[in-house]
């Protein structure tokens, strides 16, 4: 065998041996330089090919090139292996305890009443009601007179009113928007009025400011059946399942007939005589409603012979309290972070 070929064999053997002991990318790189670098052993041999007799050059060149390819392939394969091992080792040390607290800001939090109000709005919008608004500072006409509550009428005792130094008052209910909407849009009409209302009353279940959502539907031939249908649908949607309801006779000056709607206690369905939610009655008072009084229609410029309608007023605060199991109405308006975040933030 030629010396050149013996040399090649020698290099191959040596290289393969050294490759086996190259344990990291640095030693591998050193190996690559030693054999394939500008001054590497193989490179030098290739360069020395010219010293060979011309008839031996092709065979020697071929053998050298083959060796070069072999070495490259072996180096690459080894490099891949080492990179993987090294990555694995690094990942094993770069451990992050994912149970540590996050960095940056999380979700804030919603207010139960605003959230509930939005849910209620969506339910009624789905039934074809549009949202309308009106002022919170009202005049006596819209808040009382146009709703069939003349001055000094005992019905005014039902709603203790805040008065302002400009002679106006804070609306005691969202009903004044009924007449405003009738005058603005006429019949037929299908609106809901979400908003804040004010009464001079403060204890655990009364806040001087609270929320209401008023509804009004005016059309030809409206029946109590329509009112029951709308409100039953609402109750099923807001509490997540159909609940029994009952309609009790009541009195509001601006509706005739007037009713109150009770729904089956969603907590005990009337089966628990010591239920804290319904106080054992099995019923939850949820809203007042009725057929719009003809006088109110007249104030709204609508002919009560041709059109009639129904209206209701409900308390989203109460609905929210029922939904979220809250007991004190007043904490809703104090902005306690611990309350609104459920204890953590």
């Amino acid at each position, binding site marked *: 065998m030629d010396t050149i070929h013996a040399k090649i064999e020698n290099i191959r053997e040596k290289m393969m041996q050294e490759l086996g002991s190259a344990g990291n990318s640095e030693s591998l790189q050193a190996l690559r330089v030693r054999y394939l670098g500008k001054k590497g052993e193989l490179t030098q041999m290739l360069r020395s090919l010219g010293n060979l007799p011309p008839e031996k050059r092709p065979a020697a060149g071929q053998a050298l090139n083959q060796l070069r390819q072999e070495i490259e392939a072996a180096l690459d394969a080894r490099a891949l292996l080492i990179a993987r091992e090294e990555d694995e080792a690094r990942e094993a040390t770069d451990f992050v305890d994912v149970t*540590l607290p996050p*960095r940056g*800001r*999380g*979700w*804030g*939090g*919603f*207010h139960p009443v*605003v959230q509930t109000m939005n849910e209620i*709005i969506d339910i*009624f*919008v789905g039934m*074809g*009601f*549009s*949202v*309308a608004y009106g*002022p*919170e*500072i009202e005049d006596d006409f819209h808040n009382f007179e146009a709703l069939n509550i*003349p*001055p*000094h*009428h*005992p*019905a005014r005792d*039902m709603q203790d009113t*805040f*008065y*302002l130094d*400009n002679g106006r008052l*804070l609306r005691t209910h969202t009903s004044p928007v009924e007449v405003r909407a009738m005058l603005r849009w006429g019949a*037929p009409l299908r609106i809901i009025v*979400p908003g804040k209302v*004010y009464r001079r009353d403060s204890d655990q279940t009364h806040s*001087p400011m609270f929320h209401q959502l008023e509804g009004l539907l005016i*059309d030809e031939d409206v*029946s109590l*059946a329509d009112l029951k*249908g709308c409100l*039953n649908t609402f109750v099923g949607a807001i509490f997540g399942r159909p609940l029994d309801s*009952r*309609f009790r*006779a*009541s009195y509001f000056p601006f509706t*005739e*007939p007037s*009713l109150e709607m009770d729904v089956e206690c969603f907590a005990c369905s009337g089966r628990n005589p010591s239920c804290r939610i319904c106080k054992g009655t099995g019923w939850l008072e949820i809203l007042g409603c009725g*057929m719009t*009084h*003809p006088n109110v229609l007249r104030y709204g410029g609508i002919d009560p012979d041709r059109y*009639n309608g129904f209206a209701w007023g409900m308390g989203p605060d109460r609905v929210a309290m029922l939904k979220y199991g809250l007991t004190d109405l007043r904490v809703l308006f*104090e*902005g*306690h*972070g*611990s309350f*609104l*975040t459920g204890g953590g933030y």
Partner: protein
Amino acid sequence: MRISWKWLNEFCKIPLSPEEAAERLTVTGCEVENIERPCSALKGLVVGKIERLQIHPERPDLFVAEVDLGGPRAQCVTAARNLREGDTVPYGAPGSVIADGTVLGKRTFDSVVSVGMMLSAEEIGLPGIADEFGILRLPAHLTAGEDLLKALNLDDCILEISITPNRGDLLSLMGLARECYGVIEGSTLEKHELKLPRIGDPGSISWEGVTLEDPGCPLYGLSFAPSVQIGPSPMETRIRLAFSGIRSINNIVDATNYIMLVTGQPLHAFDLDRLPAREITVRGAREGERFRTLDGQDHTLAEGDLLITSGGIPVALAGVMGGENSEITAETKSVAFESAFFEPLRVSRTARRLGMGTEASYRFSRGVDPSRVLPTLSCLYEYLLKEAAQHHLEENVRVVSTRSWEKRRISLTRRKMHRVLLWDDLEQASKILQKLDLREISATDEKRVFEIPTSRADLSIEEDLIEEVGRLRGYESVPSRIPPLLHGTGRVGEEVEAHRKIRVAAMSRGFLEIVTYSFINPKWVEWLRIPETDPRSRGFRLTNPISQEQSLMRTTLLPGLLQALQTNLRSGWKDPIRLFEVGRVFLPGEEGEDHRESLRMAGVSWNGKERRVLHETSLKDDVLSIKADVMALCGSRGQIPGFSTGHEPFGHAGQTAQVSLEGKPCGYLTSIKPGILRELEIPGPVFAFELEIESLLPEKGFRFGQVVRYPAVYRDISLIAPVNRPAASVEEDLRRLGGTLLRELVLFDVYQGPGIPEGTRSLAFSLAYGDPARTLRDEEVDAVHEQLRLNLSAKGYVLR
């Protein structure tokens, strides 16, 4: 109103348990709030008669009584000094239970054994029925050994009924009995005939007359008792008044209250001898006139109040309360009884203004039945005849009337009834209405006409009749249907849309949603240093606030947010917290407007304190991080806000921005003045912003950019500008002078200090040049960039 179940059943026999009746009444509109059994704690009490009464052999302050219990006898020791032999008393044997739950037993008082106890009114749970100190003495006709509860009708229950303001007719046993008859199947109405008194001159006394000067009193009747004996009322009356929540005074006053409970017509008793003259004139009060009512209170009257006067001197505030000058006393010898009709609104106004909600004013305000005004005097006459033989009563009654009452007629049509109830059986409807004492006076297939009793002032239009039919039939009989969507779909509207998007954006950025009161402490104006020239200092004040802390309508949302922050800090909150609220503020109106309500979105952020956290720096807010929040909130509506140096009275003078949209100011962004925070005891800083939602209502259609396919070439530029030159204006110059290839610029360094002249700062920008159609060559970019540098120099910037 408190109603005795047994008493009610004397007027209408109800074939149901009180609980069942309460349920039915509640569903038909008389909400029974509670059923009380006042004597349910009592056990084993009987009637006893004192056979013998002796002074205790060793204790002169005690008595020993031998009590007959209808066969068996018991020996009782008592300290009460009001007993005599022969008296009838309540007695509890050992083992029986009195009102406070005490189980009675045997006791020895200095060698005398006392078996069980004789009882006081308080011990049987009815302190109000006592007419003297000591043991309760019972009517003599009771039999010894009788069950006490049965003998005194204490085995009763009280319905607490909430009567709606339209149903004044239900404020009496007779009215409620009629209602029960109408709503409770199988009940029977007991006849209680109301008859008119004999009208004429009282023969037994001299009386000049009655004059009605004010239309507020169109009917006035007076009856007389020339001689009465004042004393306690009979036991039965005292018990019934106590059950009805009315205090027993004396037999005359009690009689007027008792009869009022029966017929609903308030009565008033004058001491006839104390009336200044033998005449009554009803007139309107003069503005500022003074009057002392029988509860000893002085009142200043107003025009419109109704007065009962005698000899020109006021003796009663009509329909509200009598005067001290003519009230019944223990010395009263003769009495005049008034029964009248006063206009509901007149009484209501007076009672509300003076805060005098009395049994009388409550009933007059809701309207009494004019047809019962005079018959009630007959009832009183009969009651007093039975009550005590010692009274001398005059049968003739003086009456003056300036008005007559027609019975209203209302028709009920098939069409309207069907429209509301989806039910058109007029025959059945008529039967229902007749149970309520409405008389059918004509009938066709399509229409029935009814005559309405004068007691039902609440029934005036056809809808009222439909309501009566509906509630008596039961609303459960009306089907339930969803009205068809005939007129298009519902719309949430811009305001709700905007509110929703902004609030979700805020919550996503860590803000906590709160709702605070619309009325604030007026001191906030001062605390926030809002000057008088600022419209926000001119909020509306409540004239009747619950407290001063809630008496001014807010003109900014900031106070509520800061107060919530204070509340949290006071309760020990230490973490960073961001709060926001969406709500209205109330500002003085401009140009003829009454007032202006503006929907606002505001937020505050506080960086927390003294709390060691893992990631120290990442949560610290400053004005510029809040600026990012404001941009994101506006971005949720597709809007890009502008920021310029601003001024707010409560804002840090160097850290306040005016926010604008489309060039129009719409809010502020600031760091609250350190001095204000110190006064509010909030360890600063606090960052705040407030935006008008109205400006965010138009949602901008979002404009998308061009697709970049060829990479940009980057060059930096660093220049020196005066400190007071806003970065935004430098940026604007760069954009304007940068030529068409300038794609983007980013400010990456701001430096002020050594090496830079005083009053200036260095701003360094990274500029990206690009062409949408090709890759730019370096030489091209160099040329453009150089041109920009020249342009900037020409503009006066010093380039570094």
